[in-house]
């Protein structure tokens, strides 16, 4: 390899998935994104969720210098905020969003195994999950489970509906088409 190629190689930008988990407190996103920006990082897609009282975020970050350097530049802030930090090299895969075609909404009294059963059935029916969001609502004495799933399936609504039917004794569910208007 020629020398300039080596130099270019070390300066080449690479995409990473930065995951943070910890106790929620105000200002986390602002602090973390500022330190990433100062370090020369470029944000791709990101998703922040509060699950229970926990903060979690996953961010695509493009940066030169390698994963270890990225980790070291954010670590002072994440340590101060008490966040667990995880960094993985990834393929960006931007600009190739799929449009979800079906939505499955499931709810019922909370019990172990709901998500495993529903997603197991969906996987078997050829349903490819693109987005899943589940929450525990209701009271602490009578918790209810709400599961929202969007994705694509080669089979239609009826097939997915039939596949979920055996679970209808313990959960309510609805399967519907998502019509996307492109105008």
């Amino acid at each position, binding site marked *: 390899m020629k020398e300039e190629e080596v130099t270019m190689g070390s300066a080449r930008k690479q995409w990473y998935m930065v995951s943070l988990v910890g106790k929620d407190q105000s200002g986390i996103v602002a602090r973390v994104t500022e330190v990433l920006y100062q370090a020369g990082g470029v944000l791709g897609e990101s998703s922040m969720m509060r699950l229970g009282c926990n903060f979690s975020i996953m961010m695509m970050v493009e940066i030169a210098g390698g994963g270890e350097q990225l980790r070291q530049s954010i670590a002072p802030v994440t340590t101060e905020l008490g966040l667990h930090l995880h960094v993985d090299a990834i393929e960006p895969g931007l600009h190739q969003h799929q449009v979800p075609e079906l939505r499955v909404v499931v709810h019922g009294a909370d019990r172990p195994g709901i998500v495993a059963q529903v997603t197991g059935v969906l996987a078997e029916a050829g349903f490819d999950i693109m987005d899943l969001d589940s929450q525990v609502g209701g009271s602490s004495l009578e918790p209810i489970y709400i599961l929202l799933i969007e994705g694509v399936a080669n089979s239609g609504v009826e097939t997915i509906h039939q596949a979920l039917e055996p679970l209808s004794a313990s959960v309510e569910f609805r399967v519907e088409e998502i019509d996307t208007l*492109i*105008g």
Partner: protein
Amino acid sequence: MEILTYPNQQLKQNCEPVEQFDESLRQFVSELEAFMRSQPGGIGIAAPQVGQMQRICIVDLTGMTRGKKKKPVPNQGRLILINPEITEWEGFELGREGCMSVPDYTGNVIRATQIAFSATDEWGERHEYESEGFEARAIQHEVDHLEGLLFLDRLVSRRTDLFQRKQR
């Protein structure tokens, strides 16, 4: 013709009303319609999407189907809408939209379920219309373009749970 894509600022500008209903208008309308039909989806287009800053849009859901069962979508065929004005809005519904001018992004938007509107055709004649459901959504999307609004300006959270609250 070529689709302008956001962040092109022309897509954020107000369009001028059409005043001359002449041969050159009809020529433009027919080119715009042919162009719309050549695009994937191809059920609606607004003049500013091709850089023509006039209050002209076209909607045609003929042949559009939904789901694997290919159910047709209720519609009233080819609508050439010049200087359209929506006058009544009824009910609201959350639905997913994308736009030829906003590639690789779709999101949830609340629209009226039923609308009443008036528009002039390419021969200069004014008509009154009513529409509902998916066609009404398409018309609201296209008329928005004439006012410099994109579906991005009406995005709501992907976690909004309005899906089943269709008003009848």
